[in-house]
């Protein structure tokens, strides 16, 4: 370590400060006199949050419908297709329309076969790939971990989406996922991620919700600020 750090003195100050307890606060209107919340049975957990957050239906079909609604609102282009082959047809049409020259992908059981059906030069990222090479690609085709109905989000990780850059550097991000990857809400997605990865967490996990956007100029929405301008999701059975 280049410099000695100051954790001992900071921790000492924290412990000293916490000797005086802070009052709990009831966050209703301030005239109500608060009663201290009861923490004997622990903090409220994500099972409890579910009762307060936006409602999600229980059946898969309801969840897919909600995911589709959220996608439409967020400008995620969602295609429910009957098979990977159908996804490939859509993709090739897209490639022709936009005039892609080159696509990037990664070794993934759904993404790689899809990319291979696009008759264009292809970068399959692996250790030591060149960033400039990836930057020259028109689209990135990746997998993901989960789809979140509640928010229309995708949870990706460096394991499921070909590292950190693939899903954010090229201007068009294509994701292929199966309906079995649908989860109702963020809490479930995080819980499932824990079950999948807790032995060895990837260094990177990200909830992606729609294409990159900004409202920094007069709070007017513009898509494609720095990340992808378009996000397309193929949902296969």
């Amino acid at each position, binding site marked *: 370590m280049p410099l000695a750090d*100051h954790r001992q003195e900071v921790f000492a100050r924290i412990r000293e400060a916490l000797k005086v307890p*802070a009052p709990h606060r009831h966050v209703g*209107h301030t005239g109500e006199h608060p009663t201290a919340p009861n923490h004997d049975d622990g903090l*409220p*957990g994500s099972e409890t949050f579910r*009762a307060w957050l*936006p409602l999600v239906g229980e059946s898969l079909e309801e969840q897919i419908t909600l995911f589709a609604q959220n996608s439409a609102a967020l400008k995620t282009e969602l295609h429910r297709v009957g098979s990977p082959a159908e996804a490939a047809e859509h993709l090739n049409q897209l490639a022709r329309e936009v005039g892609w020259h080159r696509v990037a992908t990664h070794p993934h059981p759904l993404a790689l076969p899809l990319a291979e059906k696009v008759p264009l030069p292809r970068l399959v990222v692996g250790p030591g790939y060149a960033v400039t090479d990836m930057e020259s690609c028109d689209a990135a085709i990746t997998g993901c971990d989960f789809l979140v109905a509640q928010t229309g989000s995708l949870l990706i990780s*460096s394991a499921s989406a070909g590292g950190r850059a693939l899903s954010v550097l090229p201007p068009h991000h294509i994701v292929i996922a199966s309906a079995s990857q649908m989860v109702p809400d963020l809490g479930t997605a995080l819980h499932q991620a824990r079950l999948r990865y807790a032995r060895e967490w990837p*260094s990177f996990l990200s909830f992606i919700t729609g294409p990159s956007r900004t409202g920094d100029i007069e709070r007017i929405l513009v898509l494609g600020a720095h990340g992808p301008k378009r996000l397309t999701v193929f949902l296969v059975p």
Partner: protein
Amino acid sequence: MIAFAREFKRMAARYTADLQHRALIQRALRSYEVKRDEFKARYQSWGEARQAASEIKWEAINHLDRYLEEFITKLEARGTKVFVASTDAQARDYIVKVAQENKVKRIIKSKSMTAEEIELNHALEHAGCTVFESDLGEYIVQLRHEKPYHLVFPAMHLTREDISRLFEKELGSQPTNSPEELTMIARSVMRKNYIEADLGISGANFGIAETGMISITENEGNARLGTSLPKIHVAIMGIEKLLPRLEDLALFLPMLATAGAGQQITCYNTLYGGPRQPGEIDGPEQFHLVLLDNHRTEFLADAEQRDSLHCIRCGACLNVCPIFKNVGGHSYGTTYQGPIGSVITPHLRGLQNWKHLSFASSLCGACTEACPVGIDLHHHLLQNRRNATQGKATWWEKPIYAGFVFFMRRPWLYQLSGKLGKIFFPLHKLVNGTLLDPLRLWTKTRDFPDMAPQSFQEYWKEKKAKGPHAPR
């Protein structure tokens, strides 16, 4: 008067008189309000979600030593270099040293209010590095050599015309009044910076103690690019940003987005648990996390205001604050504007120099109502006023309030002064609005009511004298 207070009043007078500014901010925030209310309405219970968020932050802050230790241990186990800084200077020096040891020339930075707080860019530039702000709003204010106007929307005080002129001057671009074209200009400028930068700097919205990860919330993708491509990632966060459990994000990510930006959830919410791990194909070789105290342990020691450390920097309190909407973000002269800034700046920079911000409030409480983690903001302003006055009362106020006590504890004196007032008050008409008017601070812009010919007390005495059955 303290120079900072004088400057605040000067800026506030300028902005409150600027009706174009008022209209611009009102318009910008109106669209936010509509979206915020739409998404809040989707919650089955925003109120209970708020209560839970407040309790979770209470737990984290009131056991900060335990959670911080867990957080640091988990991060270090996976190769993150954690540096705990007691002061802003220590944090700056460490980051400069990391840059120098790695011969860093170009730095790509995503938005971080903590970096603003320690004025990091200045130190890095002084050490010979070039720092590119990549968040669009931050980039715009960096080009203007300005401070962020708002802790979430740094350039909300500018129109598209202002930005077009700025880009024309600084980047040689063609004038345009399309926000989309302006965004694309910034995008193309920034692209090569991501690829060429040696080091990426980010803030952190949350630290997850249980798993040793930081969480970064953004919309543009600039933080993701800046933490993916350069070979070094330095993140800086205040020690108070912790959450106990990973699943807490299921509550905090949507609440942060809804309260702060009027979104259901922001576009990217990313967790970073270390540098590139074995088997991963990209990501930085080094990941440094700077944990900043910088007076936070002092307000941790103030149990009454400890909940101000619950803040998740969403900006909701600014967006609803009628003071902020009228004086604008630059009048404050602080890193953190609006109600939360008025509460915490006296702790960060000294009470006596910054107490004026706690007085510059009508105590309407809109901030407290909007805060998603239930910080008792407007009552803290009252406490700051008390603390400031106890430390150093204003020389001319002390006798006024002594007189106030003397009169108000003596009903006969209070009543007598009312009677005398009625005799002398008509004289006010003679000086109304002039320099001689003792009520000038009011009457310069507003009419003052007349005293009533008969006070309520006098009415009551008369009514009682007439007996209970007398006509009204």
